[in-house]
């Protein structure tokens, strides 16, 4: 494997990266695969998942990790680096059963680190990571990316009791763990190299903040799609919609708006068991005191009511509540991850002041709530894939 030096610079710093591949070639290979991906959706990907994966492989998106971590690419002849980065070593990635796209997405980003990967996928769920890697290996042209995916990526399915968990932890220089807080703690508690790095993606939840005046049919449709793709099963899915500064009537109006546009935004029926469960969730929400409405064809349950009501538990239940800014902040859960916004002036400094008062990790437009990147859950984890050498010429 031949190593190549690449250079990146910000106005204040120049960084040299020693990578076992040519960055431009790797970018071209991933984006070339993207073009191929429009031809078919391999099982068990859904059409939406495959489409998102394709969007993720956009060249500008793939350049972001380097850009956000080390700056623009630079011609080596003019570079005066003050730091050298190199892959830290084996990256172990723990994916629990119901994690879907995060597996392939993490793998794509990690492929730019040049480190070998060992991925533990869920023991009982559809394994999108293996499917994606198999697809990529079959469809990529000969080159370092295909070679790396074939030879330096190891994906295995096993459960949390399997001894390979300990082996992974013992060998990995970076442990990336998705899962419940307990699962994350359990992995990091395994014996591991003292100089290894822990990346934790534990239990988080998200919500949407909207202003009545910012809502349009298009944005309501976007909100529906962002919720409907995973319901409440996604850590970046809105578990509630907060109508900021609105009245209860405003919340009810949005509830009715959502119901009206739901069939237009979501064309496919939910699975039969979900439709049946939504009947139950609708009845339970009514018992709890919510004003609850089912969407057509039992696709979801939309509720309105006061902030104090117990949160609906259904996977496809979405409460809409009105609240002042202070009430919205006060009622945020401690593990809030993403606040998706649909407000008139998101660049107004008051939002910055508000977010500064919260433990939120992301404040993004509602359409970007699920967009995964190198900065996640409060830190630039991708940068942790490298170790850094300080240079003083």
């Amino acid at each position, binding site marked *: 494997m031949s190593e190549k030096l690449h250079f990146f610079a910000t106005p204040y710093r120049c960084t040299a990266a020693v990578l076992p591949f040519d960055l431009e070639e790797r970018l071209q290979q991933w984006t070339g695969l993207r073009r191929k991906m429009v031809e078919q959706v391999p099982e068990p990907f859904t059409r939406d*998942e495959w489409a998102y994966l394709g969007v993720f492989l956009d060249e500008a998106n793939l350049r972001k990790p380097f850009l956000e971590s080390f700056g623009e690419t630079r011609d080596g002849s003019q570079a005066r680096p003050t730091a050298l980065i190199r892959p830290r070593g084996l990256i172990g990635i723990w*994916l*629990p059963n*119901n*994690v*879907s796209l*995060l597996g392939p997405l993490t793998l794509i980003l990690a492929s730019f680190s040049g480190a070998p990967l060992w991925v533990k996928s869920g023991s009982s*769920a*559809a394994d999108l990571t293996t499917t994606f890697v198999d697809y990529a290996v079959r469809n990529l042209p000969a080159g370092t990316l295909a070679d790396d995916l074939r030879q330096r990526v190891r994906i295995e399915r096993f459960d949390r009791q399997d001894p390979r968990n300990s082996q992974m932890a013992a060998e990995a220089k970076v442990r990336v763990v*998705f*899962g*419940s807080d307990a*699962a994350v703690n359990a992995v990091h508690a395994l014996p591991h190299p003292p100089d290894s790095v822990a990346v934790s*993606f*534990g*239990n*988080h*939840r998200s919500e949407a903040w909207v202003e009545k005046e910012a809502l349009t049919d298009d944005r309501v449709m976007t909100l529906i799609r962002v919720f409907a793709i*995973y*319901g*409440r*099963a*996604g*850590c*970046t*899915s809105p578990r509630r919609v907060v109508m900021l500064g609105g009245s209860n009537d405003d919340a009810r109006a949005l509830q009715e708006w959502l119901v009206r546009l739901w069939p237009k935004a979501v064309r496919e*029926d939910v*699975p*039969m*068991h979900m*439709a*049946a*469960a939504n*009947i*139950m969730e609708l*009845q*339970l929400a*009514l*018992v709890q*005191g919510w004003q609850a409405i089912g969407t057509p*064809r*039992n696709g979801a349950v939309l509720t309105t009511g006061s902030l104090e009501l117990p949160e609906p538990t259904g*996977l496809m239940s979405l409460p809409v509540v009105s609240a002042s800014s202070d009430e919205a902040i006060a009622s945020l859960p401690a593990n809030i991850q993403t606040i998706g916004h649909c407000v008139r002036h998101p660049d107004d400094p008051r939002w910055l002041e508000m977010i500064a008062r919260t433990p939120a990790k992301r404040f993004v437009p509602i359409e970007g709530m699920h967009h995964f990147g190198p900065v996640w859950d409060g830190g630039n984890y991708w940068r942790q894939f490298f170790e850094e050498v300080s240079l003083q010429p």
Partner: protein
Amino acid sequence: MTNLLDSSPFAPRADADFLNKMNEICSWHLAGCPEYRRVWPDWSETRRLEDLPFLHVGVFKRQLWKTAAPGIVHQRTLRSSSTTQATASMIALDERSSALQAESSAAILKELVGESLRPLAILDNSRALRQRGEAPARITAAMSLRFLASEIHFLLADDSMNWDRLGSVLAQHRQLLVYGFTWMLWQAWAAAIIPEPVRRLLANAEVHFVHSGGWKKLEAARVDRKRFDAALLATVGPASKVTEYYGLVEQVGVIFPLCEAGFYHVPRWAGMLVRDPWTLEPLVGRPGLLQFMNVLSWGAPYHSVLTEDLGRLVPGNCACERCGQRFELLGRVPKVEIRGCANV
């Protein structure tokens, strides 16, 4: 009391009588159960079964429902015995409904197994009887046969079969009634190695096996009804029988026997609908979610329950000559993987 119970369970009925009684019982629960009223605030009497209010079977796992009304005295809580679900259903039993439910199950069981008294052997542990204030559904189902029992024997001890006890019963009696959950009957009896002395006694016994509880656990072992019946009958003497019925905790007292033509039958004091899971439209001849109704349940609104079982309402008359509705049971609603993040 209801006059629907005055005739034999599968005699013809005037459907209007059933609808009237259902309207009455729905109004009763709306008046006495505030939670029920929150779910169905605008309901008023109807002329169509499909417009009657119902509760989804899952709501009984989240909350203990009770209707307060004159003459209603709540006693114990019936709990489902399902081992495949994490949470048990809770049904508040009351004196008035229990009397009707006992009358209902007795009438149906008599129709199924006859009226002669004989020893009842239950494939369960007697420990289950000793839970205060609670009635596990499995033991409740077994005990619904006690009015036909000259004596009762529990055949499981620490979850293993007590063949000695069965042997001592068979040493004194030639006829025997045996009740067990379907999977337990398979595991503990049909698939077990029976000690030779008991085997010899069984070969001369006339045993009527009665089972319920569903086939889910046996699907993995690829045991179907034909194999199940054959395995049981191979262990016992001539004139022995196997009878299956479908029932659910949330319709306590109502038993839906499987007839020789392969259909489950609905007694005249109960009713059923099959609904499209996405639209809730009633379906005839096509598979959908089963909804059951009965006129026995006055202490809590479990008189009309939408289940997560799939079935098909079969039109026309049955070859077994029972009147009323009949259905095919197609299993539980299939579950598909839920994707998302790790955090649910």
